[in-house]
């Protein structure tokens, strides 16, 4: 029983981990655990630096644990913080192997022999986190995302237009029913947070290198988070849309933005608890009256359904999302995103993802996406299908092999990719 409880606890704790900074894991983990992202991440919308709970869970999840390897000192480490948790640190590092780009036509070779990009291994993310808690309820959070150009002298490497190489905010979580307040440079609560740039849902089917909401997108602003009931959460915020302006108005202006952007997200989080009788395990002492009776456990189905609106001037991005998860590790997430702007330029994107986590250290994931961009003269539709694994061989290490198939109006491209993710 203890073993089962430990296993269940490990599973739940893993689920509590939240996204490892820039992955699509947030929905899965939040749904299967039934807890908000802030349980394991300092950032209320998930991703990035981990809380002590999140770090603790992470440090024990692996097909082989530190204890299995005889490294009990690592296994028994209790926190990523010092001074009673007043200072905490974290890190995400990702190494990616993929064919960057798409098949292209070489006019000399002809359409039957397209040029396929070579496999490239490149550092995709190097992101340290620092969290200070000078007062109870007050967190100061800072993170910096280094890019390839950072190491060539350009400190802030904006790989995607509109992305931010840092986040820095103060988060005040008063006791009682008062709202949580966030002030600084951070990503507004838009739909389901993703920093995986391969997801189309916040992108542009015409140019997938130029997403509407870039990975690591962040703006200077203020946000109020309210959760008056366990099943109802709302965020309202105002921002200076500097990054958005870069995305939409790079070479040519495509949207008239106000000096301020507004954002609101409303999420319902109903859950269903079904009592299930669990037969007693044989404890080896026969029918001795101790632990011989069946017990009742709750079978929990977590759900969330919500919508967000993010806009400025005549730009508006609407997101609707739905998630269902159970403790056994199955999670289903769907999201629809629609944007419009000044020019006759609309996007309508959607994705649906299914994950199954049979063991805390292994998750299988399937994902299908559709992105559509409609302009005055053109309509472009792109489809994507991804199948992959999230495998944690030892705590702090994730290996993520994937096969992805992308179909656009111009090409069909399927490739295997692999990612090594080290995190603390």
């Amino acid at each position: 029983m203890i073993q089962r409880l430990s296993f269940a606890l490990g599973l739940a704790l893993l689920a509590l981990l939240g996204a490892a900074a820039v992955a699509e894991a947030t929905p899965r983990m939040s749904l299967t655990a039934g807890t908000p992202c802030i349980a394991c991440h300092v950032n209320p919308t998930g991703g990035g630096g981990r809380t002590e709970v999140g770090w603790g869970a992470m440090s024990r999840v692996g097909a082989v644990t530190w204890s299995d390897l005889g490294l009990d000192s690592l296994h028994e480490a209790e926190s990523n913080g010092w001074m009673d948790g007043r200072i905490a640190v974290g890190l995400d590092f990702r190494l990616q192997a993929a064919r960057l780009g798409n098949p292209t036509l070489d006019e000399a070779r002809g359409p039957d022999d397209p040029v396929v990009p070579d496999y490239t291994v490149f550092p995709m993310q190097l992101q340290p986190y620092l969290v200070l808690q000078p007062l109870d309820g007050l967190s100061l959070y800072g993170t910096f995302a280094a890019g390839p150009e950072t190491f060539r002298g350009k400190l802030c490497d904006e790989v995607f237009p509109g992305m931010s190489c840092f986040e820095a905010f103060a988060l005040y979580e008063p006791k009682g029913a008062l709202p949580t307040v966030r002030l600084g440079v951070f990503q507004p609560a838009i739909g389901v947070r993703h920093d995986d740039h391969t997801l189309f849902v916040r992108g542009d089917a015409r140019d997938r290198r130029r997403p509407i909401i870039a990975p690591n997108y962040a703006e200077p602003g203020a946000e109020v988070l309210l959760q008056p009931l366990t099943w109802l959460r709302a965020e309202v915020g105002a921002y200076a849309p500097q990054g958005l302006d870069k995305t939409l108005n790079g070479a040519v202006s495509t949207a008239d933005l106000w000096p301020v952007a507004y954002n609101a997200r409303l999420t319902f989080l109903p859950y269903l608890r079904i009592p299930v009788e669990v037969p007693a395990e044989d404890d080896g002492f026969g029918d001795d009256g101790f632990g011989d009776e069946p017990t009742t456990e709750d079978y929990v189905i977590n759900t969330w359904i919500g919508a967000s609106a993010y806009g400025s001037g005549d730009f508006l991005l609407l997101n609707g999302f739905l998630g269902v998860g159970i403790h056994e590790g199955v999670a289903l997430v769907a999201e629809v995103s629609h944007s419009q702007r000044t020019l006759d330029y609309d996007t309508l994107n959607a994705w649906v993802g299914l994950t199954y986590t049979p063991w805390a250290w292994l998750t299988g994931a399937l994902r299908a996406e559709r992105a559509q961009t409609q302009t005055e003269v053109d309509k472009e539709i792109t489809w994507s299908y991804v199948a992959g694994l999230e495998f944690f061989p030892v705590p702090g290490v994730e290996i993520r092999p994937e096969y992805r198939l992308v179909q656009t109006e111009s090409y069909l491209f399927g490739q295997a990719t692999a990612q090594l993710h080290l995190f603390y």
Partner: protein
Amino acid sequence: MTQESAGMNRRAFLQLLGCGGCALALPGVAGCTIAELYESGGGELAFSVAEPRFSALGAVDGVATADVAGRPLILIRTGEDTIVALNRLCTHVQCDMGPTQSGRWDGEKLICTCHDSHFDAAGKVLKGPATRDLAAYPVTFDPGTGEGRVVVGSTPEPEPEDPTPEEFRDLVNPYADDDADALARGQEIWSAQCATCHGAQGESVAGFPEPVPTAFQSGTSGYSDGYLLWRLRTGAATGPENSIMPAYSAQDLSDDDAWKVITYLRSLGP
């Protein structure tokens, strides 16, 4: 080490071996790369700066985009008389260098704002990270009319070679199109010898078996004088298969009368 932890180790090892192996092997198992291009045959685009979508090309350094036969093109007016057409997908990681996307033409080079690759007006890489040149496509442009044409992919069908033999090729009808005497004589001959098959107005005779002899009614203005005289002199030998057009030698029809028939024939054309 306790018995329990030893058991966990074995299990963990087997789990690692099994599932971890599967995870690591996935790229290998499913590692085949699929790459297929659509709509990559040849094609062409006729454009005019009078069209709103190409209006930016009305001025030097103006830029417009168009997709032709699967190629995403960027058209750049590099000078008063010149427009160039390049594939607008950056060869680095295929950022779209359209002006509303990730591209900027600064008057000398096309800049991909994704990773700052630069290309010249001929598509050659000036600055990486891109290493391959952009494909460039031939453009014809008439600054007087503001109209132009881009050809992509396979070379368009060549203009049909003029079949007119050399001895006929440069011959010119001595009679003007409105020469009344020539028209009258030509009509006289036409009515007597040609109208039986071609009809009084060149409209062909109803019920005439294939090939219907209407060739002269349309497009006569596209034929040279020498070509028409050659067809008249050689008849079916130069016509389509199964043609029963007789050949009119100089003995049957003098050069002078032949030119008058041709003068009349041209008056029938659309």
